[in-house]
């Protein structure tokens, strides 16, 4: 008996080895990924139709109540939501400046001088350090009392005066701007800070891209008399297309994901004027006034929908590459 089944079993496995093996290799990653990423996405989508403060009854049942699309109608009439959307758009548009700026820095650094590697890595620094730290630094820069901006401002618009008691005071013709406390300027201040690491990221993408630009084409272009901008536009940039594509994707995703700097620099204020969807969602879902998981999930769903546009485009491009590849 045993002698006849054993070879049979072995041969079944051998015959199906190539079908079974990939799933065995995939199982742990897939399981983990589903538990923490895939399933929560669907739970969030579902939760956006509920009102829930995150609590459970004594018998362990969730206290969530189904309210249909109410969260979404509330969102539609929520001025903070529209401010967040507006700021998200502002972030995306201004963040895009990181791409030409990164290209510019990359072109500047794409030389072979002694110590160039060292320079390149130092230029990349801002991307490596935490955005929390970047936010803190720029917060100090913008400080109207002692920040760099204030110091420069004082140089032009202020003079020292000695008051009656004999203390030195600083009188300004135009008051020092308090960027992060101004509803009109705070968002621009944060985006500017965010551009610093993002430019470094785009720079490294372009430096790698420039490494692979076909030198024969450049030489051919030179023989044809192409120089400077023309060379850049007609010969170099087309070859940098893959780098540009990735730069655009990571910049858009980075802009939509911006959370750390806002949390550090303004916490969405003043008066909610610097909120973006990612921060507003956090503020709504976990606030001091109790948890509003349902409403927060509705905001997250909107953000997810916006992101999915770009993710789908990215996947579609990847799919095209795959088809061509095989």
């Amino acid at each position: 008996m045993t002698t006849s089944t054993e070879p049979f079993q072995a041969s079944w496995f051998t015959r199906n080895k190539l079908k079974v093996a990939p799933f065995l290799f995939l199982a742990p990653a897939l399981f983990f990924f589903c538990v923490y990423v895939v399933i929560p996405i669907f739970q969030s989508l579902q939760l956006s139709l509920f009102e829930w403060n995150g609590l459970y009854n004594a018998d362990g049942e969730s206290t969530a109540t189904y309210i249909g699309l109410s969260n979404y109608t509330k969102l539609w009439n929520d001025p903070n939501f529209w401010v967040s959307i507006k700021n998200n758009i502002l972030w995306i548009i201004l963040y895009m400046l990181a791409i030409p700026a990164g290209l510019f820095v990359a072109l500047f650094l794409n030389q072979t001088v002694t110590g160039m590697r060292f320079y390149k890595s130092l230029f990349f620094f801002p991307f490596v350090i935490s955005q929390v730290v970047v936010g803190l630094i720029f917060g100090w820069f913008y400080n109207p009392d002692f920040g760099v901006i204030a110091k420069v401002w004082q140089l032009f618009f202020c003079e020292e005066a000695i008051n009656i008691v004999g203390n030195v005071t600083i009188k300004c013709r135009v008051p020092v701007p308090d960027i992060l406390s101004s509803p009109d300027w705070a968002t621009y201040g944060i985006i500017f800070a965010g551009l610093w690491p993002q430019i470094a990221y785009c720079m490294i993408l372009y430096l790698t891209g420039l490494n692979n630009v076909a030198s024969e084409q450049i030489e051919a272009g030179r023989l044809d008399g192409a120089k400077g901008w023309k060379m850049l536009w007609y010969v170099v940039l087309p070859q940098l297309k893959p780098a540009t594509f990735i730069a655009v994707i990571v910049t858009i995703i980075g802009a939509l994901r911006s959370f750390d700097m806002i949390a550090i620099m303004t916490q969405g204020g003043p008066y909610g004027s610097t909120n973006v969807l990612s921060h507003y969602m956090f503020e709504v879902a976990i606030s001091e006034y109790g948890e509003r998981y349902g409403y927060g999930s509705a905001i997250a769903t909107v953000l997810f929908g916006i992101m999915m546009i770009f993710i789908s485009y990215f996947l579609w491009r990847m799919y095209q590459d795959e088809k061509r590849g095989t």
Partner: protein
Amino acid sequence: MFPYPIAKSTPRFRIAYQAFLPIALILWLLPLIAIFLTSVRGSKDINTGNIFGWPTEFKLFENYHAVFTQTEALKYLTNSVLITLPTVAISVSLACLAGYALAIYRFRVALPLFFLFVAGNFVPFQILMVPVRDMSVQTGLYDTIQGQFLFHAAFQTGFCTLFMRNFIKALPFDLIEIARVEGVAEWKIFWFVILPLVRPALAALSVLIFTFVWNDFFWANVLTQGEQVKPITAGVRALNGQFVNNWHLVSAASLLAAVPPVFIFFLMQRHFITGLTLGAVK
């Protein structure tokens, strides 16, 4: 090479370029230089409003010593290490297996599963926040080190799988064919043929994931409450609140938070950059 190599241009231009390079670098890193100078100031400078000028006294040792003795910075840094290292180990190993499966075998759902990992890696954190937090509370993982690294590991598996799959796909397939003809078991092919070949990818991935997770701030806020398990990013924010007028200490702590990723980057620079661009810019 583009732009035109500086070595071939006029000497005057070459000198101008080499002189401008350090100036540009200083301007570019001005924020970091400023925070470093602040971190070595004495409290006299801070009180007189000299935050960005040249320090009147240098207290490098005293300040950094104070950060370790007067604040919880050491605890935060330890937590960051305890969260980051297991994340790297788990996500990279899982992704090796998954990437191997997706790159080598031809089965119908290979591409859709691959895209699932890619898409998952790009989703906004907020869509995961409430369920993950709720699940952590339910399972007792809320406000623990494990709760944090388990989540990070699972999330980073998406990016790691994207990376490993593309890397393995680019290896010569003949190697596997030959091994199969020889009758080598599948897991042995993975272990003895593929794994030695993907070592550079492992290094690249590890340094990248280390940096990503070390710098995380959002999940530190979502999955923790107390001071006991906070990583350094959240810790720096807490310090910033507690030590309102001690900028020299806060900036010293911030720089400490930045040191490990910067150090790792310098150490494994080449790997880091391949990591950031692979699967993208070849």
